[in-house]
């Protein structure tokens, strides 16, 4: 994800084996492009001792082996990478699109009504807002490479559950704050589960383990509960590329 100019950044120590780089421009889109561009650059720069980078929204955690490379050297790599971002601007890789069938509410989305009530809108309106948007995968998060996305255009942020669930099923479609996500694997969770997709997202026999990457686009589509089983066991895959979708590429 090349950008023309890297956003201004701050670098924080994060223990003896990691640095946190935070992009601090006013424009959240620039911050996101900067930290992901930097993560890609670090991943490909081939520096010994760099384990990798975890980019999210406005920050990237750079992990390294302090025996092989010093924190000072890693800072220098980061600064070089930020400079290089500006020079390497070129056509962005075309984002792929994913279509995600979801059964909303009921046993599949136990928090749907709670979310509707809190937002002061109907359940149908929650579903409409959730399916209306085209989401950009902002980053891969915990657990298991979850696609973290900016949430639907709800009137207000969605509070997290007071008592997080010990186990949320794979495929759970959740919202919290101003964010939206799909759970690739069973895990504890404090987000509001409004639906579930029958598609399997995670495949540990494949590399990478999840089919999307930051920058890809994702849409939710409502299906009926009785259709859940027709999709069950199928894998989430990118939709075939239409010329129209290439027009949505941001550079």
């Amino acid at each position, binding site marked *: 994800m090349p950008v023309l100019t890297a956003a201004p950044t701050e670098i924080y120590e994060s223990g003896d084996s990691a640095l946190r780089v935070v992009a601090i421009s006013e424009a959240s889109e620039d911050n996101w492009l900067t930290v992901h561009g930097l993560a890609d650059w670090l991943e490909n720069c081939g520096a010994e001792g760099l384990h990798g980078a975890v980019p999210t929204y406005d920050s990237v955690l750079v992990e390294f082996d302090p025996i092989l490379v010093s924190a000072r050297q890693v800072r220098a790599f980061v600064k070089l990478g930020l400079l290089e971002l500006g020079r390497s601007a070129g056509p962005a890789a075309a984002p792929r699109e994913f279509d995600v069938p979801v059964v909303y509410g009921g046993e599949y989305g136990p928090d749907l009504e709670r979310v509707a009530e809190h937002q002061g809108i109907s359940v149908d309106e929650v579903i409409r807002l959730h399916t209306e948007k085209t989401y950009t995968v902002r980053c891969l*998060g915990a657990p298991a490479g979850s696609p973290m996305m900016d949430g639907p255009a709800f009137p207000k942020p969605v509070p997290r559950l007071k008592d997080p669930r010990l186990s949320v099923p794979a495929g759970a479609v959740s919202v919290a*704050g101003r964010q939206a996500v799909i759970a690739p694997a069973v895990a504890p969770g404090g987000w509001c589960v409004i639906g579930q997709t029958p598609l399997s997202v995670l495949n540990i026999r494949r590399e990478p383990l999840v089919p999307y990457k930051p920058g890809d686009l994702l849409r939710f589509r409502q299906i009926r509960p009785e259709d859940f089983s027709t999709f069950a066991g199928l894998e989430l895959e990118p939709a075939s590329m239409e010329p129209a979708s290439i027009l949505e590429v941001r550079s």
Partner: protein
Amino acid sequence: MSGEILIQQPGNSVVTDLGRTRGPRFGLPVNGALDQYSARAANILAGNLDNHPLIEITALDFRMKAESDILIAVTGAPLTLTVGGRPSSQWEPVSVRAGETVSIRGIHRGLRAYLAVHGSIEAETLLGSVAPDTVVGFGLQLKEGTRLLTRRSVGPVRQPYFDLPLFRLGLERPSMDSDLLVDVTDGPDVAEFGESGELLFTSEYAVSGRSNHIGLRLGGELPERTSSGEVLSRGVPVGAVEVPSREELLVLHRGRGVTAGYPVLAVVTSTGLDVLAQARPGDKVRFRKTTVAEATAAQRRSRAQLETLRESVNTVFGLLGIGCRPQWQDLPVAACS
């Protein structure tokens, strides 16, 4: 020639390595041996590379039978090690003959032991690592009857007189106490805790029974966040000290989810994480502030010791003909037995 091991009593044991360093990029925790020093030492003592697959044994007794002649090394928490019924030394290479049982019992100080086998163990990898990941359901948890293949077998190496232990390589063993001192550096969000951040260094914390490879929960006086507001999800380092609730401090270990939205008060150093890997429920933890420069220096000293050990092992194994040196078959190893 390859070797074989039969697990008879698994306790709580897995095949692991130093971790999935490529994982965090894909949203997977690094995982791997929690006590990295002990894991590296076990592999070095067994003549392996540091990152080779080995067995991590947590808290419970463990027993396995060698189906071929093998060479092992056991490190980590103090325990009672017997091979074919004979008391054997921890932190030294130990020769095991085909048919003999290796028994590990009585882990009571410290929590985790590491058993490396010369030639290491065959196991599936995910993103280049055999380390189990409980969230995605990957890894080799050992069960009664599990058979493990080792990539090499080693003829019996034994002291001719009274079967005295053959090796005395004298590696410094980490002290394992129920009072743990853990070094931390300031976290990237230390400012968000104001003066209350100092409580971390003046209080004593008790390890909760709800601790695991993902994180340790510690009870005690808690620093409090002075700022409020939603924090965007960010990559969190292994060792991050957070205060997610009013009840406990959370120290993330190698199984941590790679992103989270809590401010990071402090970060446990690499050597400190090895100390915490051995913390038992009820143990007392005190934190000591250090700097990244000092933490790195401490880590380098610890690794230098392991390098010295590696040289000794290479020399001794070379003389005994252990390993795949071309001349090893010509050496009269059997004459020692």
